[in-house]
């Protein structure tokens, strides 16, 4: 059976697994943004905390993904075999780009703009939501874009610990020496990454202050 007809025949299953993969990445990204952006805000004026937070995020990012899974699985509550461990690992990977870009985006803002905002009687939350976050928006989104692409990649490996997703096809394809299975995992994973890159790039350009 040719790889092409294999793909056509199993398109329903492939689509379902692609959706599963996407959910894994989306859940991880939402959690990573909810942690990374507030933490980025927090470290702007706290150099000691900044060094610790960026240092730890950097360590997670540097550990090879399979090794990180290896570390997480034995941990009670968050570990074990399955989706939960995979999501925790994806969050840890996504943290550094989001945290670093939030921090850089916020520090890049012209101090004169912040001084004006304060002098004009904007409250702290008005300055945050109407000035700081919008001005750092393009930077933050660039971080989210990088993190998303990394997550789509790492999520394929998460199949090794029973998290499901497109990696399932690839690992099975390697075991059974089946090109059809390999491509059933590889093609959607590649397309997903390219599409995410393209779409988030569009949003990023819209957020850029021109």
């Amino acid at each position, binding site marked *: 059976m040719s790889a092409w007809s294999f793909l056509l025949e199993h398109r329903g299953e492939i689509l379902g697994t692609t959706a599963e993969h996407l959910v894994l990445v989306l859940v991880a990204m939402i959690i990573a943004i909810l942690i990374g952006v507030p933490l980025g805000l927090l470290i702007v004026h706290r150099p000691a905390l900044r060094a610790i937070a960026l240092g730890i995020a950097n360590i997670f990012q540097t550990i090879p993904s399979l090794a990180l899974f290896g570390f997480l699985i034995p941990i009670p509550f968050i570990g074990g075999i399955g989706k939960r461990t995979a999501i925790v690992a994806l969050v840890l990977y996504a943290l550094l780009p989001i945290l670093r870009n939030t921090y850089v985006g916020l520090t890049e803002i*012209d101090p*004169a*703009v912040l*001084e*004006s*905002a*304060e*002098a*004009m*009687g*904007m*409250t702290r939350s*008005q300055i945050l939501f109407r*000035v700081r976050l*919008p*001005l750092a928006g393009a930077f933050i989104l660039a971080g989210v874009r990088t993190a998303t692409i990394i997550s789509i990649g790492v999520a394929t490996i998460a199949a090794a610990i029973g998290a499901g997703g497109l990696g399932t096809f690839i690992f099975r394809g390697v075991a059974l020496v089946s090109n059809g299975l390999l491509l059933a995992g590889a093609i959607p994973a590649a397309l997903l990454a390219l599409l995410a890159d393209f779409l988030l790039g569009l949003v990023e350009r819209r957020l850029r*202050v*021109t």
Partner: protein
Amino acid sequence: MHSPALRANGNSIEFQNVSFRPSGERPREIVSDITLTVASGETLALLGRSGSGKTSLLKLINGLLTPSKGKILIKQKATTEWDPIRLRRGIGYVIQEAGLFPHFTVAENVGLVPTLERWPRPRIEERVAEMLQLVGLAPEEFAKRRPRQLSGGQRQRVGVARALAADPPILLLDEPFGALDPVTRAELQREFGALARQLRKTIVFVTHDLREALLLASHIVLLQSGRIVASAPRDEFLQLEHAEVRAFAASLLNQAGEPA
């Protein structure tokens, strides 16, 4: 300049033995024992070299800084007793390079305080157009632009329009024309002088340019190392004998002597 009618509406600024020492590593006082009254409707120039404490003095007025000693009364009420948000919305603020919000249009920049104060939309639009006209920018041409599509002089005009939009009785300016080329600066100084006389607000501006102080202010205060070393109505300032006054006066002669 100091007519009783102008004093009567009570938009005065009063420094009572004010010192300011920043928190943190450097314990040096930046502002030392300043006592000073700016009457309603008066235009005061805070003149001094870099590091003389003039910008800190300005920031003490709208509560961006808090005095470590003494107090500042705005409309007879200490800045520390004001709700800082209410205090600042009643005080226009213009800084060098304008500090415009780069992600807002010109209209959104000018309309910011009215928007924060929840004015109805049509009234904000009307006010924005009025303010742009006042600073010599045609609303239909400039309202929709972004700050980076403006020249330095135009940005500064927008900065002034933004500060005036909610009609605050007090206006603070920190070297408002400092970053402009000499020709544009002279033009804006002249126009601002006319505007200030027309608006009759209590104005405090910071400058290191004696010529600018003489052109715009009704009263000039000279600062050195955080202290007032000279204070006089504009017309009497150049007659003062203090060494720092003479130094500034000499710089005036040098400027005049420079080839154009």
